[in-house]
C-alpha cells in the first residue's frame, strides 16, 4: 500500500531557481541541524597565490558576485578538479573555485567571495522550508555546466548531448514531460513569470507547444480556483523591468547579481498559493530546486552517474576531452514540501555510504512520469533509473496549525 501522502497526491509543482550552490544557501544549517550535510567552517580553497581561504558566513544579498561566476563547462571543470588537466587519473577535489572566479576579472580579494555562504537567519524562507519539510543532501545539477542544458534535463530527462547554452532541437522519440502528460490525457503547464521575463524553453516548447504555457498570475489564479494542472513547472522572473502603473518588477531568480531576498519572497509567495488552499495543500507536493551552482563553492564531490547515451566532443566541452554524461554537476539546494513530510526530514546523500541517495534533474521527469504514467518507455535509461523524489512522503498528515505560512 502506498503511504497516504502518495495515495492522496494529485499535483506536483516544481519551482526551479537559478545559480546557487547547496553550501552557499543551506550550508550554514549544519551547526544546528547536524544531519544536513553543510559546512563545518573548515572547508577551504586556495586562492591564486596559494593562500588557503576558508568558507565565510558573509554572503551578501546583492553586489558581492557582480562579476557573474563562471558556470560553463570548462570553468566548472576547473572548480571541481582544481586545475588538473583533463585525463585519466585526475581526482575531483573541489579546490578550484577561487582560481576560477579569479579568471572573471575580479580582484584577488573579490575572488574569495565565491566561498561565502548565507547564515540561516538571512534566508528565513529557505531555512524554514528546509527544516520544516525534506531537504536532499544529495541533489546535484545534471551536468557540470550552465543553465540551458541543466534545465533540459528537468524537461526532457536529457540535454541531447549539449553541455553549453546554445540552442538545440529535441530528438525523437524523447518527448518533454509536458507532452507525455498531455498525450496521455493528463494536465501539465509551464508557468513563466510574465512576457517581459518569458521562458528559457523557447525553440522547442514555446515555439511548438505554446498552449502548455501560462503566466505566474495564472498559476496564482489556478491555485485559488482549484484548476492547477497535475504537473506544474514554474520559472521565476529573470530580469528587472517596469511593472504595471509606475511599478517595478524585480528579478526573483537569485541568479547573480539579482537580489537574493526577492527570490526568497517569490518562493514564499509560490508556497503560500498552495499552502493557503486547504484542498490543494493536502494533495500537492512542491519541489524547490536550483538548476546549477552558478560557479559558487560546494564541498561535495559530484558522483558518477549512468550515462544518457550521448557524448559531447572536446570542441564542445572546451576541456580537450569528450564528456560522456557519466558524472553529475555540483550540488544544489533541493527541498520537497508537503504536509505529509515530517518536520526535519533529511534525505541522505553520498556522505552516507549505506543509505545515501543521489538525485539530479532527470529525477523530475522520471518521478512525474512514473507517478502519473506508469509504464512509459520512450526516455533515456538514465531517466528511467533515476531516484524517486517523492520518497519523503509518509502516511501521517500534519495538522494545519503545525504547518507554517509566510507573511510576505
Amino acid at each position, binding site marked *: 500500500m502506498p503511504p497516504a501522502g502518495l495515495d492522496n497526491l494529485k499535483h506536483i509543482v516544481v519551482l526551479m531557481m*537559478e545559480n546557487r550552490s547547496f553550501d552557499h544557501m543551506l550550508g550554514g544549517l549544519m551547526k544546528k541541524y547536524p544531519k544536513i550535510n553543510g559546512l563545518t567552517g573548515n572547508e577551504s580553497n586556495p586562492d591564486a597565490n596559494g593562500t588557503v581561504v576558508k568558507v565565510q558566513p558573509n554572503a551578501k*544579498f*546583492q553586489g558581492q558576485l557582480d562579476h*557573474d561566476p563562471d558556470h560553463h563547462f570548462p570553468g566548472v571543470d576547473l572548480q571541481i578538479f582544481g586545475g588538473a588537466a583533463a585525463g585519466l587519473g585526475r581526482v575531483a577535489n573541489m579546490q578550484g573555485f577561487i582560481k576560477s572566479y579569479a579568471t572573471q576579472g575580479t580582484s584577488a580579494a573579490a575572488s574569495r567571495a565565491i566561498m561565502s555562504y548565507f547564515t540561516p537567519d538571512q534566508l*528565513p*524562507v529557505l531555512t*524554514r522550508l528546509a527544516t520544516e519539510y525534506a531537504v536532499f543532501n544529495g541533489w546535484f545539477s545534471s551536468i557540470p555546466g*550552465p*543553465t540551458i542544458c541543466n534545465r533540459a534535463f528537468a524537461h526532457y530527462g536529457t540535454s541531447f548531448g549539449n553541455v553549453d*547554452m*546554445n*540552442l538545440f532541437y529535441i530528438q525523437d522519440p524523447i518527448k518533454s514531460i509536458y507532452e507525455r502528460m498531455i498525450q496521455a490525457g493528463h494536465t501539465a503547464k509551464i508557468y*513563466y513569470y*510574465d*512576457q*517581459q*521575463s*518569458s*521562458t*528559457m524553453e*523557447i*525553440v522547442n516548447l*514555446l*515555439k511548438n507547444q*505554446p498552449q502548455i*504555457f*501560462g*503566466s505566474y*498570475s*495564472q498559476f496564482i*489564479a*489556478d491555485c*485559488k*480556483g*482549484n*484548476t492547477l494542472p497535475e504537473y506544474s513547472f514554474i520559472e521565476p522572473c*529573470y*530580469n*528587472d*523591468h*517596469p511593472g504595471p502603473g509606475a511599478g*517595478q518588477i*524585480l*528579478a526573483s531568480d537569485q*541568479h547573480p*547579481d539579482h*537580489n537574493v*531576498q*526577492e527570490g*526568497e*519572497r517569490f518562493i*514564499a509567495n509560490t508556497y503560500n498559493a498552495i499552502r*493557503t488552499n486547504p484542498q490543494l495543500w493536502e494533495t500537492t507536493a512542491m519541489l524547490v530546486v536550483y538548476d546549477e551552482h552558478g560557479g559558487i563553492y560546494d564541498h561535495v564531490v559530484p558522483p558518477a552517474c549512468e550515462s544518457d547515451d550521448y557524448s559531447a566532443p572536446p570542441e564542445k566541452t572546451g576541456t580537450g576531452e569528450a564528456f560522456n554524461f557519466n558524472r553529475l554537476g555540483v550540488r544544489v539546494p533541493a527541498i520537497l514540501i508537503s504536509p505529509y513530510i515530517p518536520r526535519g526530514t533529511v534525505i541522505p546523500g553520498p556522505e552516507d555510504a549505506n543509505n545515501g541517495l543521489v538525485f539530479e534533474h532527470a529525477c523530475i521527469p522520471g518521478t512525474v512520469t512514473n507517478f502519473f504514467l506508469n509504464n512509459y518507455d520512450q526516455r533515456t535509461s538514465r531517466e528511467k533509473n533515476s531516484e524517486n523524489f517523492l520518497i519523503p512522503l509518509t502516511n501521517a498528515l500534519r495538522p494545519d*496549525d*503545525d*504547518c*507554517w*505560512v*509566510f*507573511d510576505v
Partner: protein
Amino acid sequence: MGKKYKLVQKVPKTPKSAYNHDRFISQLIENQIKHFHELEKGLVKAGEKLTDISKIKTELHASKYLKKMTALLHPQGAKKPRKATQRKRARRAMASKPKSKQARRRSS
C-alpha cells in the same frame, strides 16, 4: 491573509535599491535573446527588419524584446487570468441565454 494561521514567518521586503533595469544582461539572458532571435528569423515578414540584438545591452532592453517575441508566440500570457468562478458564471450565462431558431430546430 484572511484566515488566521498559528505559525507565521515574516519575510523581509526587498530594498527598492535592488531594482536596476539598466543592469547589463547576464550570459543567461543574452542566450535567451539569441534563442528568440533564431525564432524571429522564421517569423519576420517580407520587408520587415530583423531586430538587431547586438543593441540589447540592459535588462530593460531585454524585457522589451522578450515581451515582443513572447507576445507573438503566447499572446495569452498578457491577459489577466479569469478566475474559475468567472468562467463558471460565463458558462451559466451562456446556458441560460434563449436559444436561437437554428439551435431550437437542431435540438427538437
